[in-house]
């Protein structure tokens, strides 16, 4: 790595707005077409309704884009915010950034909640939210320097391509003496050459003396950054304390922070042990409950799953504090040091791998038939360094492998790669190709929705079969849970605003294992409350994990254990303490409901957001193939006879597959009706006028979009 050379092309000095009660009340807008830099005050009405975080991102994006705007149009905005509670050291999960943009995969708003220090540093530098629009005509780096109160744009040539070296180089360049003052947002070459590029948000790990990063993975936010020719956005800020947000009630903030952190310290060791194993404890649990995606979501378990679970990673992870925010007691952001890749540009060198988390293990491991912890580490490393979303990579390659094994595509199409399940070299080769935009990898990097079209048009593959097995909805690849036996989680995926990501609702256990929501109304209620509460974390700049991955010992004795109401009350106290706005748990839901419905209308503005877009591939609902049915024959036979009262004695397996499909597809449609009713939407999935009025988002532009869609 040579010395970093940056050529300053624009500098703007500014008066740094104080952070008061969690807000700066300022937004920063950088239009790269012309390097225009603007700082605006944020309207009190916007603050009241949109709260911050994802709410602010969506509001400013709405102002920037038209209904016809495509992801790669200059007016598409990439927005990053922190939220009023973000940047509270010591509060578990108290420092996330939220990114939104129009997604290359879905054409609609995508949002991602990510660790690292960028969001808080940017806020303490004076800005609740930044929007990046326009396109630079050469590669640039943006610096938001909260220590010197300057914003700078640099032309950048000859920087390292990969995010791993680039984050490190820029951290040292911008504050050699105190690298902990720097957080860098980068993408990578894979983000340039695919539609599912991710963003890496860094922090400096003072204990290990190295730069670490977490990913805003979903929906191609990195692809948009690369398309704007932004190599990096850097935030620089100094010491952060509990006073940095100037909370309304510092003592109350200290009390609730200490209480929540103490509970985690006491209970994590008895529960999921996330401080030791991160989220890899989910691998054996999902495997045992038949929910671990295996061979493109065909099956839910595999005898070799144990070798890619917590037992193995616990011993591989480097020991030490692993919070992706300062003082987070969960400290689940683990990594592996001195890993030596066996392929690609880093072959034979020693690198630090940030991860893997459950999603990467499942998506790039079991789902591809790869039961080798080290190969998964290598995939994880290259995806991050190249700026690729491991979930979309894993789910997309799983689809390719099943197409290959079924003869829909052959080595003629793959450039000679034998892409059977379990082919780890083939998988890594595809990832290297994606990064370069070359070979068959260039096609895979377009995501499943486009691959289905290309395979059908150019390779004559069966579109119906690909529709059934291609694990995407709304254009976004599924995250890594099998939902066949949980109708509620089918809704959790299919009805999620941005596409099938589990951060809106994760109901598999409540529904499938515990059977706590037997009726459509029960499921609809859950598909109202949980998405609303989970949305709230992204409004405020928080991580969701400390809410329900470690729960109070007496939680089971409470009225609604699934909601972990003791913690919900703590979050209300946290919000009150920082903002000074007296808040109850119900208020948290009301805050989210307004933003949630606004996002649904935003989807509508972009040409989506109706019932037809809430569809699922049949594999998310039930067995597509005879092989799949036969693998769980007893379960499905029993359902046909006992649940649906069918006489199956004369049926062959193909007939049973068809019969089950009819029932399950009909159930999913009934679920949609129930959820739309609960959310105050029409049967076409559009918020009614009464709903937007009740939520106070009946702005003229919202009503206009509704009217264009027949809602008067």
């Amino acid at each position, binding site marked *: 790595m040579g010395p970093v050379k940056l050529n300053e092309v624009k500098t703007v000095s500014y008066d740094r707005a104080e952070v008061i009660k969690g807000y700066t009340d300022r937004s920063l807008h950088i239009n790269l077409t012309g390097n225009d830099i603007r700082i605006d005050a944020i309207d009190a009405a916007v603050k009241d309704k949109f709260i911050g975080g994802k709410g602010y991102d969506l509001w400013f994006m709405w102002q920037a884009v038209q209904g016809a705007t495509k992801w790669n149009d200059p007016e598409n905005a990439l927005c990053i915010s922190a939220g009023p509670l973000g940047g509270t050291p010591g509060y578990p999960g108290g420092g996330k950034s939220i990114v939104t943009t129009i997604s290359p995969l879905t054409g609609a708003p995508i949002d991602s909640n990510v660790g690292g220090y960028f969001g808080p540093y940017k806020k303490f530098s004076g800005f609740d939210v930044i929007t990046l629009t326009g396109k630079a005509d050469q590669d640039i780096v943006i610096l938001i320097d909260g220590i010197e109160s300057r914003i700078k744009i640099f032309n950048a040539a000859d920087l390292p391509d990969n995010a791993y070296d680039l984050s490190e180089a820029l951290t040292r360049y911008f504050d050699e003496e105190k690298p902990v003052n720097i957080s860098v947002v980068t993408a990578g070459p894979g983000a340039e050459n695919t539609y599912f590029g991710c963003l890496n948000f860094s922090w400096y790990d003072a204990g290990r003396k190295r730069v670490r990063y977490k990913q805003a993975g979903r929906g191609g936010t990195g692809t948009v950054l690369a398309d704007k020719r932004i190599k990096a956005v850097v935030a620089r800020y100094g010491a952060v304390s509990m006073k940095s947000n100037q909370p309304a009630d510092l003592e109350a903030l200290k009390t609730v922070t200490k209480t929540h952190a103490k509970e985690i310290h006491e209970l994590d060791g008895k529960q999921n*042990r996330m401080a030791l194993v991160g989220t890899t404890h989910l691998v*054996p649990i999902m495997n045992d409950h038949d929910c671990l995606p295996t061979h493109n979501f065909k099956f839910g378990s595999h005898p070799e799953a144990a070798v890619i679970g917590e037992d193995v990673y616990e011993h591989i992870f480097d020991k030490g504090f692993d919070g992706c925010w300062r003082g987070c007691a969960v400290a689940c952001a683990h990594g592996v040091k001195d890993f030596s890749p066996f392929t690609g540009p880093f072959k034979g060198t020693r690198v630090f791998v940030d991860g893997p988390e459950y999603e990467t293990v499942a998506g790039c491991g079991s789902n591809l038939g790869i039961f080798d912890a080290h190969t998964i580490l290598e995939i994880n490393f290259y995806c991050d360094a190249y700026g690729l979303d491991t979930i979309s990579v894993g789910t997309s390659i799983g689809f390719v492998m099943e197409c290959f094994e079924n003869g829909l595509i052959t080595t003629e199409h793959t450039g000679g790669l034998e892409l059977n399940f379990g082919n780890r070299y083939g998988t890594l080769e595809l990832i290297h190709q994606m990064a370069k935009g070359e070979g068959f990898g260039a096609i895979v990097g377009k995501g499943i929705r486009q691959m289905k079209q290309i395979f059908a048009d150019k390779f004559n593959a069966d579109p119906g079969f690909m529709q059934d097995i291609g694990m995407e909805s709304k254009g976004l690849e599924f995250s890594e849970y099998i939902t066949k036996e949980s109708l509620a989680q089918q809704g959790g995926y299919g009805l999620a605003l941005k596409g099938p990501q589990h951060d809106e609702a994760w109901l598999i256990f409540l529904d499938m294992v515990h059977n706590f929501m037997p009726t459509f109304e029960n499921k609809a209620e859950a598909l109202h409350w949980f998405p609303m509460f989970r949305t709230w974390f992204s409004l405020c700049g928080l991580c969701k994990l400390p809410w329900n991955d470690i*729960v109070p010992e007496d939680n089971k004795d409470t009225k609604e254990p699934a909601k972990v109401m003791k913690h919900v009350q703590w979050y209300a106290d946290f919000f009150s303490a920082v903002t000074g706005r007296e808040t109850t748990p119900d208020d948290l839901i009301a805050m989210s409901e307004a933003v949630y419905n606004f996002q649904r209308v935003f989807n509508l503005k972009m040409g989506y957001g109706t019932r037809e877009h809430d569809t699922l591939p049949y594999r998310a609902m039930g067995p597509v193939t005879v092989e799949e049915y036969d693998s769980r024959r007893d379960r499905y036979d029993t359902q046909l006879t006992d649940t649906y009262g069918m006489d199956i004695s004369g049926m062959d397996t193909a007939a049973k597959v068809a019969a089950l499909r009819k029932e399950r597809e009909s159930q999913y449609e009934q679920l949609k009706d129930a959820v739309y009713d609960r959310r105050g939407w029409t049967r076409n999935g559009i918020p009614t006028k009464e709903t937007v009025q009740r939520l106070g988002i009946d702005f003229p532009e919202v009503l206009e979009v509704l009217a264009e869609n027949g809602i008067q």
Partner: protein
Amino acid sequence: MTIADLLKQMPDVRFCSVVRLNGKLVSSPRFQETRIPDNAVIYLLPLVAGG
């Protein structure tokens, strides 16, 4: 005694679908077949929140 036997004797374990037995995770489909050795340390994990 198996894990399933133990849970039968305990009040209100509706949410228990996973336990940690001497440090190892055991999920509900294996409760029937998993014997608890003498002097075992067992934690009942609350509902697994996931994601």
